[in-house]
């Protein structure tokens, strides 16, 4: 499974999100490759899932990959609930 975390520039909030997502996946024993990317690069990529700040919704419009939008990037519970909810539904 390949997940990309996205932000405007690819090394700020996307990196924060990647760290949290990596922790959650490790805790749950789920294998996935997580990369942090800027919104422009994400548009040309293939992946199973995009995770980004909710404020980037319009910047990612038209990208045909499942997306999870996060409201509060410091809230582990929100990120975990949304990510595991998505993965359970996919199974």
């Amino acid at each position, binding site marked *: 499974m390949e997940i990309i975390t996205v932000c405007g*520039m*690819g*090394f*700020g*909030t996307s*990196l924060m999100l990647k760290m949290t997502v990596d922790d959650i996946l490790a805790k749950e024993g789920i294998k996935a490759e997580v990369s942090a990317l800027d919104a422009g690069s994400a548009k040309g990529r293939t992946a199973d899932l995009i995770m980004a700040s909710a*404020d980037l919704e319009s910047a990612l419009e038209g990208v045909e990959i499942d997306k999870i939008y996060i409201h509060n990037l*410091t*809230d*582990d519970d929100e990120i975990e609930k949304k990510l595991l909810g998505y993965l359970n539904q996919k199974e």
Partner: protein
Amino acid sequence: MEILYFIQESGEKMIYQALSQNTILLNESAIDWGEAAKKAGGLLLDNQSIKKEYIADMIASVHEFGPYIVIAPGIALFHARPEGNVNEICLSLLTLEKPIEFGAGDKDPVDLLFALGAVDHDSHLQLMAELMKILKDGQLVERIRTATDVKKVLEMIKKKLEE
């Protein structure tokens, strides 16, 4: 570009090198987020960590991508592409007496702001991990928000990272 995920568990914390008496301003005033960006960025400029163009780039990033730099309710992280204007990995911390609006919906208003300078895609990973550890502690964030003594803020951060 892929990221090599590696955080040094031992050794000096990167955030101690970044945050100091010179890079923290508490209980300041700013009329809007642009002025706040200039103040937070100004600390890095005075410290010779960035060139002045970087401050304009941080402001332009908000215009380009919207208020997504408001990473959590009341907290903003200014940053931009380095473009050769960042001399070293750096971070400043600014708190405001009166919170300001970013147009970030219910994450507004903001009174705790950081300016981050990165030199590449991932060498500031450890600094970000340390910053996240601080920001995920709601009680600590609240104490930083209301603090007026820079020395105390530095002590609180140190204590948290040594937990």
